[in-house]
């Protein structure tokens, strides 16, 4: 077959251009390629692709204290947030799962739901949530302490509204330290603030001085997600490679590039009233004692109808 010389030249330029683009997006492809193999002892199955971009999907967000106190990939999940996104109606629901929720963990027996990730990786956490909450999870995102700091910093910080002073004399000094068991004092002052990564982490991680304990922290974590969403609305696909590069090893996810692009492009569409926040306070839960430790008992009779309404 004979191609005119001009076509060969054009093809050469097109190839060069594609190569340039490929190199630019290389960190993103590398991140996507390694996303599902770093998830623990058991590889996570690749989730089912979405038939259409307007179909609702559910993502399990996992946050762990992954400092030097814990062996790598043997960490608990201090934060578990189930997020349902409906691109069609531009509605989203965030449900914070208490870390001390006393549940049946598949293959493990009764335990705090936060330990499911420690023993089973992301697979275990997903299985525990799916079996107890009767939901299907399409994707997960796991992030560690430094990952959250890097994410916020890479977005140029986040604007938040601190509802009340958050003062904690026992905030863990476990990042960039030789003594991960140390503490320091934290004071986050109320009002509108522009947080960098370290201070955003302090705000969502502190719990000792809050009357609501872990529930107060859950509310602040949802607040940070909203702030990250607001900042993400300002970035585009060209920002993703640099973001992926910065997050190498700090974030694990099964979310593919196409859904990630979709999420970023939708971020601006989800306004405050369209995002529903759920925290499982009493009567959905009650405090108690089991397995020699303080736990939170679920009231499934109250929780499951709520979950069915929001996540089905």
């Amino acid at each position, binding site marked *: 077959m004979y191609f005119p010389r001009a076509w060969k030249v054009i093809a050469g330029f097109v190839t060069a251009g594609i190569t340039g683009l490929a190199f630019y997006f290389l960190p993103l492809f590398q991140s996507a390629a390694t996303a599902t193999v770093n998830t623990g002892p058991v590889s996570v199955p690749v989730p089912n692709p979405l038939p259409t971009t307007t179909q609702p999907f559910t993502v399990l967000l996992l946050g762990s204290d992954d400092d030097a106190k814990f062996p790598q990939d043997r960490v608990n999940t201090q934060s578990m947030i189930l997020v349902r996104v409906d691109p069609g109606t531009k509605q989203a629901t965030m449900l914070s799962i208490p870390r001390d929720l006393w549940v049946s963990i598949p293959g493990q027996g009764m335990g705090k739901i936060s330990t499911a990730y420690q023993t089973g990786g992301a697979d275990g956490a997903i299985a525990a949530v799916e079996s107890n909450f009767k939901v299907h999870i399409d994707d997960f995102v796991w992030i560690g302490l430094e990952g959250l700091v890097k994410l916020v910093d890479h977005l140029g910080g986040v604007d938040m*509204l601190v509802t009340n002073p958050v003062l*904690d004399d026992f905030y863990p000094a476990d990042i960039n330290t030789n003594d991960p068991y140390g503490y320091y004092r934290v004071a986050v002052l109320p009002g509108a603030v522009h947080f960098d990564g370290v201070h955003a982490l302090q705000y969502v991680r502190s719990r000792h001085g809050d009357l609501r304990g872990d529930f*107060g922290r859950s509310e602040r974590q949802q607040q940070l997600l909203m702030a990250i969403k607001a900042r993400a609305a300002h970035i585009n696909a060209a920002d993703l490679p640099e973001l992926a590069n910065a997050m190498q090893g700090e974030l694990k996810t099964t979310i593919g590039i196409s859904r990630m692009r979709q999420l970023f492009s939708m971020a601006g569409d989800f306004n*405050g009233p369209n995002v529903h926040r759920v925290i499982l306070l009493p009567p959905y839960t009650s405090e108690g004692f089991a397995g020699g430790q303080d736990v939170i008992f679920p009231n499934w009779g109250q929780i499951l109808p709520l979950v069915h309404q929001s996540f089905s």
Partner: protein
Amino acid sequence: MSSVEARPVGWNATRVGIAAALVAAMCAFGFGVYHAAALLRAATKTQVQRPTETRAAVLPGTMYVEQSGAIYRFKQGSFVRITPEDGWTQPAISPDGNWIVAVKRSLDRSDLYLLRPNGRVVAQLTHNQSRDIGRNHWAFYPRFGPDSSTLYFSYDPKDPYNSYRVDLAIFATKADPPSSPAVQWTVPNEYTGGDVDPVPLRDGGLIYTKFSIDDNSNVHSQVWLQARRGSPGVGLTKAADDCSQPAVSKDETLLAMVCRHGGLQSADLEVASLDVAGRAIGAPAPYVKEKLVGSPSFSPDGTLIAFMAPGDRGGPFQLWTVAPNSAQTPPSQVTKNLDLDPTSTPNWTT
């Protein structure tokens, strides 16, 4: 067959040159595409400048603001740094204009210092560092009383029965060194973070922000008026309105505040008439709505309210103003590309 004989007919140095040039051009094109893609990145990170590197709209009087741990004096549209970038924040000028009291914050404590208006440190008023970090204290939100001598501030007294409880209470002391022992003015609700934003009144009373947590675990803030030390005081605003950060006009007839009405993403700047003697306010009027507003402050002549809010596209906080007598006038952005601390109220004097 030799290699020379294998060349196509007409293969010569010119063609080799053209081919090489084309290959080079293709490589350059690919390189250009790579960099062009990078240019498409959104400008998420604001190019923050130091205040001294910028000019801004001229405002009446003199204002003290903070960025990156340094206090700046803002006058006639330009900024002058009066302290180094060393944890300085929340400056408050005395009514007679002779003194500034400011917070110097470290990793695990903060102290109040007395400064001259040029930034020269005169005295350290509190000593909140201890050998045991757990016995360190915080001191924030200093404000001079009308006598330019009494100093009100938030401070965390330790709970001897529970080291997890850290709530700020408002204390008062004399600013003249050596300072007298501070006396506790307010009793905060436990595990709420405490009482902040003291605004001393001419009659000896105090307006401040008090926090509470209701039976549904919702945090509320109220602008609170307390006539005397230790008295229970009254809420000037409803808990459900979540108002905080009060500012009072010089003639004490107007109250500006930030109200979030249960929201977690935006807050309104609202202004109400103030009746100190009657311990009441009029119906608040929203002046800036659905913006992340913080730290309002009246100008000395009462013609403007300064406040902090992000720039047009979010990001770090800038200085804005709005006229207090015209809810219809849109707010005006005074600074751009700064990263002012919105928890440090712009302190405005003549």
